[in-house]
């Protein structure tokens, strides 16, 4: 075992990972005067240099398709396209993961300051009160050890600080929060609202982490629709720009980049005393000493770190006496469908950019319905409008119209901005066949054993995706669109997203009151290791149809305050 140099500084808290969870804990602790080491596996990010906001496609010779037309021959070399901000990928060179036979799973990892918050869709939805008691409601899954009311003050803090748009609606599945004014609906969004109303489906102002008034020194959105490219004015939320950079200015945060955590070091009593990491530049192992540690590497990466922190006292990995580390993994159910809307053809041209994402969305509306064919629910995201033309923007029109010349050109012009599509994001219920563990045969380029994924949808999720299709088709047809895609055979596994594809993986280090069935207590503190906390989505007990980021921030905020208080009381 490696010895820690006795002279090296001891940080109050070592935080591993700088995404939504790590960024929040860093900000809260630094503000409370705590001395923090922030450990990030990837490089720093420099918005002025790295972001491609406001670039036109023709400013790059390959226009975004990649050298040699790479994107024409397979997936784009960039997960979300050339112009999207630096944010990792589905494959990282030298850092593999494996998928068990019979399973399909994709794991998106960001190794960069800010992690996946640099690119995420900024959708910021509170969980509903009933989302914390899923087992009590339908007998499936497990109840949370905390209630909505316990988390609500932290939703307030999170929304006030990062800035979230929205409107007060009084809908139980979509609790109201502290909202900034949402910009008005675009033309296609008005049509969606009218069609939804006719079908008794609510369609309300978007809840996006985009500021529409100056907030904490950040200027308001300038409505260029390019949130995904990274915002040079930091008018949307990313943990890098909104939490990490300001926290660094306090002088209480030491940021370690390109530092890949390998193992937590525990003393014989089981307390964590340090973090062992690989300095990627020199490919040498180093240690950081700390009084407590907060894992925020992303749910699966945090589980991997605990499973790889084995010792005589913790043969199954640190804090894993329950055997639940890596279990209870879920992703969101995803399905999309769109159609061209005749009423929008030849629409008078105007700037419809707006925020980087929809201005209205559909919260789950059947939370009280009886005789539903599947448990739980989904929300619906909407896209359309005049987007900046990009490689592939008119591939659909070329395919549908074929031909050439003036006819083709006229068809493309008529269809520009007329296509409307819906994406559902629904709740997967944890099942015993879906988890991650350590592959006994494979290590990454740093010699760290890698994760192996096991993933199964159940009929609950397949029926939900089927319901999404039928809903989307009904709305599109009510708008006058004609859906050309045949209904997939959902019950045979068609149509539904692949596990991991929606990038909402969570639950792998869950919280609970029973140390036999959970790893963390209700404060996201390990039952077995008092100075070990988890602040990403790994503690989540269920994966409601709300997208996890806002809840990660709220829960991490609560965890950070609890940790600071326990440190003050000298309990950790």
């Amino acid at each position, binding site marked *: 075992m490696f010895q820690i140099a006795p002279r090296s500084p001891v940080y109050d808290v070592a935080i591993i990972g700088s995404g939504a969870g790590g960024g929040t804990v860093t900000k809260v602790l630094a503000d409370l005067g705590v001395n923090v080491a922030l450990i990030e596996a990837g490089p720093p990010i420099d918005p*002025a240099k790295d972001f491609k906001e*406001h670039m*036109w*496609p*023709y*400013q790059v*010779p*390959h*226009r*975004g*398709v990649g*050298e*040699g*037309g*790479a994107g*024409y021959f397979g997936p784009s070399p960039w997960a979300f396209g050339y112009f999207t901000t630096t944010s990792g990928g589905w494959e990282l060179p030298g850092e593999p993961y494996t998928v068990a036979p019979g399973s399909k799973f994709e794991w998106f990892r960001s190794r960069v300051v800010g992690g996946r918050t640099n690119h995420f869709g900024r959708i910021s939805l509170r969980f509903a009160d009933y989302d914390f008691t899923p087992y009590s409601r339908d007998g499936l899954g497990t109840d949370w050890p905390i209630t909505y009311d316990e988390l609500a003050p932290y939703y307030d803090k999170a929304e006030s600080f990062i800035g979230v748009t929205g409107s007060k609606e009084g809908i139980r599945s979509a609790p109201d929060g502290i909202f900034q004014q949402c*910009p*008005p*609906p*675009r*033309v*296609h969004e*008005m*049509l969606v609202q009218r069609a939804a109303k*006719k079908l008794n489906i609510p369609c309300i102002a978007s809840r996006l982490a985009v500021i529409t008034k100056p907030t904490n020194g950040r*200027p*308001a959105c*300038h*409505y*260029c629709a*390019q949130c995904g490219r990274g915002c*040079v004015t930091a008018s949307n939320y990313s943990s890098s720009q909104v939490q990490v950079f300001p926290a660094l200015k306090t002088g209480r945060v030491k940021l370690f980049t390109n530092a890949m955590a390998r193992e937590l070091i525990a003393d014989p009593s089981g307390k964590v005393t340090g973090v062992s990491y690989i300095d990627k530049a020199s490919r040498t192992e180093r240690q950081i000493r700390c009084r407590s540690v907060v894992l925020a590497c992303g749910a699966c990466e945090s589980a991997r770190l605990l499973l790889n922190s084995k010792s005589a006292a913790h043969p199954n990995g640190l804090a894993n006496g329950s055997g639940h580390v890596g279990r209870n993994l879920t992703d969101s159910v995803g399905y999309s469908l769109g159609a061209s*809307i*005749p*009423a929008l053809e030849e*629409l008078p*041209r*105007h*700037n*419809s*950019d707006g*925020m980087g994402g929809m201005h209205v969305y559909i919260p789950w509306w059947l939370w009280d319905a009886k005789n539903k064919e599947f448990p739980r629910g989904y929300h619906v995201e909407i896209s359309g409008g*005049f*987007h*900046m*033309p*990009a*490689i592939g*923007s*008119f*591939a659909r029109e070329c395919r549908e119209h*074929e*031909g*050439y*010349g*003036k006819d*083709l*050109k006229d068809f493309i012009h008529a269809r520009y901005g007329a296509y409307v599509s819906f994406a559902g994001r629904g709740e997967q219920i944890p099942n015993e066949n879906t988890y991650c563990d350590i592959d006994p045969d494979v290590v990454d380029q740093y010699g760290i054993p890698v994760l192996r994924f096991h993933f199964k949808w159940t009929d609950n999720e397949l029926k939900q995706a089927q319901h999404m299709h039928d809903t989307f088709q009904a709305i599109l047809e*009510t*708008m006058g669109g004609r859906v050309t895609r045949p209904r997939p055979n959902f019950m045979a596994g068609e149509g539904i997203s692949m596990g991991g594809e929606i990038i909402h993986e969570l639950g792998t280090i869950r919280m609970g009151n029973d140390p036999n069935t959970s790893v963390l207590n209700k404060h996201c503190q390990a039952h077995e290791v008092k100075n070990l906390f988890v602040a990403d989505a790994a503690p989540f007990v269920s994966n409601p149809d709300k997208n996890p980021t806002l809840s990660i921030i709220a829960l991490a905020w609560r965890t950070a305050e609890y940790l600071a208080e326990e440190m003050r009381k000298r309990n950790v």
Partner: protein
Amino acid sequence: MSELSRRDLLQNIALSVTLGGLSPAAAQHVHNVAADEKASSGVYKVKALNSHEYQTLEKLADLIIPPDEKSPGAAASGACEFIDLLASQNSRLLQIYTGGIAWLDQTMTRRYSTNFVKAKPNQQTALLDLIAYRRNESADLGPGIEFFDWARRMVVDAYYTSPTGIQVIGYVGNTSVSKFEVPQEAVDYALKRSPV
């Protein structure tokens, strides 16, 4: 638009958001600078195709997106430069174009005893009318249909990602506004035609 002028835009935006927004005139300026930049970028030196192949590609590009009274066609907007450049970086793509163009010439020669570029306009379109549609799939036409699919896709991509194409299709975003508004004219247009 050069990296420098983009940087000016970003600085302008950073400044203007604090002052309350970028003026419409400034936004238009951004677009014009972008268009001028392209026009002054000089003559492209063909890298992968030979001059006959490049000439054939130019003809094909303008048949796919022809010039009209208001705007130049695909060739003048840089579509062939885009294709030639990528083909110079990828032998698979180069083969698609050299092979496809040779197929066009051979087929034209068989039908009209001349190559594609030298054929009469009605002879050119007669062949395209066959290979521009999947429904004409046959052993004879298969390679031509496959090739035309590539050419159409890439010419359309190149055209609409060029300053000309962006202007022609009417994309007026990628700018900075202090308030997002939807013009009433567009709302009325859609609502009048909408079944809901």
